[in-house]
């Protein structure tokens, strides 16, 4: 290990972040190299300086203000959640109703077609009012056709 590679690892060495062969090579080099030892001492002093500098005290009311800000956040979130939940509930209900209508429509439609194949008078009624595209009229038409059976 030469001086350049040793000096590039000095911070990690001082922070005890080296191990194994790397650490042994560093120690071996520094025991012989005065320049690298001086460099290490300089960085050790700086590390000590950075660890020792004091920070100003936070304002006394800071935790209260932080809590108040977070509480405001708390008040906003449930409202939004409820709104989203209600919307989701309405959407799911609407979809379920539509699906039920569709299934009913299709089921009764096939039943009506079978019935139409058997009786002539019913077949005429169905031809007058076909299912085609009219979503709302399907079940009403089908119910009306059950009467004469």
């Amino acid at each position, binding site marked *: 290990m030469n001086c350049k590679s040793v000096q*590039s*690892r*000095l*911070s*990690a060495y001082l*922070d005890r*972040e080296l191990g194994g062969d790397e650490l042994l090579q560093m120690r071996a080099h520094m025991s012989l190299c005065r320049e690298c030892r001086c460099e290490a*001492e*300089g*960085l*050790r*002093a*700086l*590390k*000590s*300086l*950075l*660890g*020792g*500098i*004091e*920070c*100003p*005290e*936070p*304002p006394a009311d*800071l*935790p209260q*203000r*932080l*809590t108040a*800000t*977070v*509480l405001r*956040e*708390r008040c906003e*979130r*449930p409202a939004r*959640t*409820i709104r989203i*939940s*209600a919307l989701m*509930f309405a959407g799911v209900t609407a979809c379920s109703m539509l699906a039920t209508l569709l299934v009913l429509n299709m089921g009764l439609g096939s039943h009506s077609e079978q019935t139409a194949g058997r009786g002539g008078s019913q077949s005429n009624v169905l031809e007058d009012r076909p299912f085609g595209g009219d979503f709302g009229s399907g079940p009403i038409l089908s119910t009306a056709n059950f009467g004469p059976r």
Partner: protein
Amino acid sequence: MLFTAIKDRTATIGDRARLFESLIQDSYKQAYGLAYRLTGNVAEAEDLVQESFVRAYRFFHRYDETLPFTSWLYRIMTNAHIDMVRRRGRIKTTSLEASGTDGATTWDLPDIDASPDRHMLLNALDEPVQKALTSMTAEFRTAVLLADVEGLAYEEVAEIMRTSVGTVRSRIHRGRKQIRNYLLKHAPQTYRSFCDEL
């Protein structure tokens, strides 16, 4: 059923808020310390602490309770700090040598007698150190502060900064050298006296 779910969720939110309030009480001083060192002034430090706690609360469901809360908060804070610096267009990329040459940063260092005590030297170096930190890029500054001021291991710093241990090692080493060069240039007498005291 819907109303029961909403009621349960509201109760959970209440518990969550109470737990979070206690975490604020336990960690605000440490958080403020790091925020002050990152930003270099009181007003921005408060903004950063507030932004960090708000983000932490918003994503509190993602917090792994087996890990220290401060480590998680620091991760949020370092991201918030980088966002804040970018938003204000103030990422410092100028060299340390360039800063202070315009006469804007003058060091009114106190007179130090022949055998000053370490505490006095530390106080005298506090402002130049903070100026040196502020002159660095946010990434270098964060790595140095987390390692030297917060005393975290490189692996923890890497986890917080979401980078590799190798990158952290490089940032810390280069960051320290930048600070040392800055002090040798702008407060040489005080810095050398401090080193001699050790």
